């Protein structure tokens, strides 16, 4: 979740910054990401430790961060395994 935003007037950036996100938004995209990565855990596949760690990171987002913005920033910085 990248909180960066940029507003252009033609080629010129007239506003930029970090928008605030809510826990509802984090949960919305976290749940969608867990659904997207569910196939990693199919019985006939072996999930790498990186993928396990990533899914654990997603599940622990609310518990490991005091604010939704912090959680979003941590998620944006996470190197997502392919």
């Amino acid at each position, binding site marked *: 979740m*990248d*909180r*960066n*935003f*940029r507003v*252009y007037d033609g080629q010129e950036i007239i506003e930029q910054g970090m928008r605030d996100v809510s826990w509802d938004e984090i949960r*919305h995209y976290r749940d*969608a990401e867990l659904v997207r990565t569910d196939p990693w855990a199919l019985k006939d596949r072996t999930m790498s430790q990186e993928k396990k760690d990533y899914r654990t990171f997603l599940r622990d987002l609310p518990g490991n961060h005091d604010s939704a913005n912090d959680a979003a920033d941590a998620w*944006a910085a996470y190197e997502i395994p392919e």
Partner: protein
Amino acid sequence: MPLPDATKDKRIYQLLKNIDLGNLTFSEFQTAAQSVFAEPEAEDTLRRIVLVNLARMSVAGDWAGLTSAGGGGSGYGVLRPQTTSGTFDGFEVCSMAPWGVAASSYSPTAAAAYPQGYPFVSPKSGDVARIEVYCSTASASSTVKVAIYAQDETTHMPSTMLGYVDLDSSSTGTIAATSFTGGTPTLVAGTQYWIVQARGSASYGSFRGVGEDARLGLGMASDPTNGPNCQANFVGDWNAANPVDNVGTLSQYVSGDALRVLLKWA
């Protein structure tokens, strides 16, 4: 003429005397009419209230029936709930009725080299002030073009381009553009338009979109196995250097994700 046994009463005309029927919104009419008590003494005004609203709806556009608020207001055709959050000030056209779906997926879509588009019904009248997309995977020196097209009255396909924006996708996050090339699109609530997008550069980023499987279809197919086909390819080379004024005729229904586009009015 007042009713035979009713006291003559022109209050509703006096309350609305400075607004002509063509500009009288349901909200304005409702505000005036709500001030009248439902009592026998107001019988004549009650009759005139019905007459005024009937006249208002008669001149405000397509007849929508007495159970609808009619034209002059949203004109959207369905009753779109009004959000109460001040931060929800944009319209995500890919997720609005009748063509849209709830954009619940987190699907990234790569900008195509050729124009693709989908229809939407404008929820609001006026000049579009801002277009926003979300870039999920950046690419150096890349842009995506997002245009709004009017619809041909006969074919219901895109006709005149009302304006487009170039959105810089060289870094991730929300990208907004406030100035348009080719004119500022002025939309009319309840009218169908098209969102059309294409790469604006040889390199391209990925954007948040509605996944192919989640898209609502345009209803055209060659056989029952066709996937959802709301998004359409167009004939015409809408390339980076020379975006054309017309995306041309429909080429084919294609697979792919629909770009999530947020429109904001001033």
